[in-house]
């Protein structure tokens, strides 16, 4: 990882509004480029587009507990390579991030070793067991300053516990991020979308309604409590409809979609390749279209990678027995460009909103997702929008290789990532 605390002058950049210019970062913040000192580090960015540093509201870093699959150091290195300057680290580590001490461990380790800001997500329930509230207030008051809470990987299925969690975090403007999956409707054997393919392959079906019934329940609880709800990795057209209704009603709900749900369909599981086993599962093309449209019209606020590294031995089982999840940090921007920009569905302003500004707002990160203007924190990503490459799973900064894009030709845009004035990734 290349680092620099010297003043950094980036010349000849293009901005999303079509204008051009130079950027100067001193002491971690953008300043007037005309004030560049003599010992400045220069980067020629001619022909490159400058975006605010990307923010991922949904990352699994696996430290503590599964450092063989990812660490805070390797996960944030992968994030930097993907153009991210901040990630939210989900709580399903071992031990679970359900205390102030556990959240501070992630926070402190990231300060020492991270290549991006890491905002720990606290568990909603102790041990993710879905029975008793975790120490939400102590996590909020800790050095980690936790604002988002989630049992992600599991759904907070008990409606009363969900109500109490929403009520409780109102005291410090927290947000409850829900993994919407009714555990009875999508039971323990559910491993792919319930439909024609699951029926034919004999795989346990995960019906779309198992997601949307929880989203419907939770938006009503959010309305009742006046609290903020965030819906993780929305995957179905029905959930989108519920969210649209809730937003029209003024309910405080935000939602994210993963890059893989914007591009891949349930057809990928036809070969029983566990690389494509993910929770929620890949859905049919109609859902993919609904998700794209929801990202266009604002029903879905943000893109979240759900970067889920796994060791080979956890994936090389029969499809039903293999671990859920796929990598996403390094390829997220490329997939969003492919599905949303290159298809003409959104412009660069909207991309900045869904991959930087909105996730920063949802997470309560005032030092992220800001425009590239004087006084803003020095976070940016320089990209070559036209660059493409064939994805090679072996060529990754993550410790894991469960990359669903291996062998595909995708945009490969990120040239340079700067976090708080420090270069955290530079294309060699």
């Amino acid at each position, binding site marked *: 990882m290349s680092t620099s605390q010297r003043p950094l002058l980036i010349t000849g950049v293009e901005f999303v509004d079509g204008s051009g210019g130079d950027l100067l970062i001193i002491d971690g913040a953008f300043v007037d480029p005309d004030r560049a000192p003599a010992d400045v580090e220069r980067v020629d960015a001619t022909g490159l587009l400058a975006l605010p540093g990307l923010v991922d509201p949904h990352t699994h870093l696996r430290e503590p507990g599964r450092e063989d699959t990812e660490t805070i150091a390797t996960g944030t290195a992968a994030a930097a390579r993907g153009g991210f300057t901040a990630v939210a680290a989900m709580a399903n580590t071992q031990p679970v991030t359900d205390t102030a001490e556990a959240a501070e461990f992630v926070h402190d380790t990231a300060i020492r070793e991270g290549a991006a800001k890491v905002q720990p997500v606290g568990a909603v329930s102790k041990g993710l067991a879905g029975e008793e509230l975790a120490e939400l207030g102590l996590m909020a008051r800790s050095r980690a300053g936790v604002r988002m809470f989630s049992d992600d990987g599991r759904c907070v299925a008990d409606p009363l516990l969900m109500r109490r969690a929403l009520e409780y975090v109102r005291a410090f403007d927290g947000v409850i991020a829900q993994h919407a999956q009714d555990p009875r409707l999508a039971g323990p054997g559910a491993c792919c979308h319930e*439909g*024609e393919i699951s029926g*034919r392959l*004999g795989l346990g079906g995960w019906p779309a309604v198992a997601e949307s019934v929880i989203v419907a329940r939770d938006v009503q609880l959010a309305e009742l409590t006046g609290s903020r709800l965030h819906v993780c990795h929305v995957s179905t057209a029905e959930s989108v409809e519920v969210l649209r209704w809730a937003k029209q009603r003024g309910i405080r709900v935000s939602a994210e979609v993963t890059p893989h749900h914007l591009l891949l369909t349930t057809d990928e599981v036809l070969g029983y390749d566990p690389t494509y086993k993910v929770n929620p599962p890949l859905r049919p093309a109609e859902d993919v279209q609904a998700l794209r449209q929801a990202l266009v019209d604002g029903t879905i606020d943000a893109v979240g990678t759900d970067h889920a590294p796994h060791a080979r031995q956890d994936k*090389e*089982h*029969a*499809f039903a*027995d293999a671990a859920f999840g796929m990598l996403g940090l390094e390829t997220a921007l490329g997939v969003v460009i492919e599905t949303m920009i290159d298809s003409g569905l959104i412009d660069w302003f909207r991309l900045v909103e869904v991959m930087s500004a909105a996730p920063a707002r949802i997470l309560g990160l005032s030092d992220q997702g800001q425009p590239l203007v004087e006084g803003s924190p020095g976070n940016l990503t320089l990209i070559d929008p036209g660059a493409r490459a064939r994805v090679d799973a072996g060529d990754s900064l993550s410790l894991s290789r469960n990359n669903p894009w291996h062998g595909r030709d995708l945009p490969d845009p990120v040239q340079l990532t700067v976090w708080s004035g420090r270069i955290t990734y530079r294309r060699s």
Partner: protein
Amino acid sequence: MRNLLSAADLSAEEVFSILDLAEEMSEVQARPIKKLPALRGRTVVNLFFEDSTRTRSSFELAGKWLSADVINVSAKGSSVSKGESLRDTVLTIAAMGVDAMVIRHSASGAPAQAAAWTQIPVLNAGDGTHEHPTQALLDAFAIRRHLRRSDPEAEIAGKKIAIVGDLTHSRVARSGVSLLRTLGAEIVLVAPPTLMPSGVGTWPVSLSTDLDEVLGEVDVAMMLRVQRERMSGGYFPTPREYTVGYGLTRDRLAKLKPGAAICHPGPMNRGLEISADAADAASSLVLEQVAAGVAVRMSVLYHLLGGEEDQ
């Protein structure tokens, strides 16, 4: 034929070739000394991650009567309990130099995954709720034999076959639909809506929830085992209600066309999906299906391994 993973992989010509050779193999089965030299020097591993006395014994006899060396590996749970992945288990067995793997697994797709990891022929002996292609072949064999008792030229094409019961969890049904359709049969699936697989409306079959309505029209009633071990979701209210709605009871026997055959893949839940009267009826093929299993598996093993030396 490099692998046999799904009944859908077989063309009608391949099915006929397997069934015709199985006829010859069944003659061997009737001899006092049941040994052919066809697979001498070849090694077949029965890799069973899921218990099955019936299917494993059938494959073992099939291999041995063709003079193959047969090893049974009961790998139930081992890949998980000892921390070894399925891939490592498969590659370990392959590295020993075996010539074919017969795989049974509680998870759908496991044999297909194994076939992707190794060059050794893989034969699916039942995977989860997906397929059991040799079961479909032996069903077809037994049905064709039954039909030919009254008409030596009879074929399955054009015959109407009802597959009844727990379709959602049945690998027998999935393979059966594929293979019997390939042979030109008309198929009606009969079950309560809770036991119909997702997307069954796109299958090349007709559907019914009323067994009594279809029973008088069919040439074969294929009753499926109610997989009570998979019934945690409350698929029907009580066994009594299931039997009344979907069991082949003594009363329903009388509604079958004269000569219509009764099939069941076993093991049977007598009194639930099939009555003792039906199971033991003259037109019941249950034991013939078991016998056909060995002959059909001999034929399949020969098709997978026997022809290679000639190439």
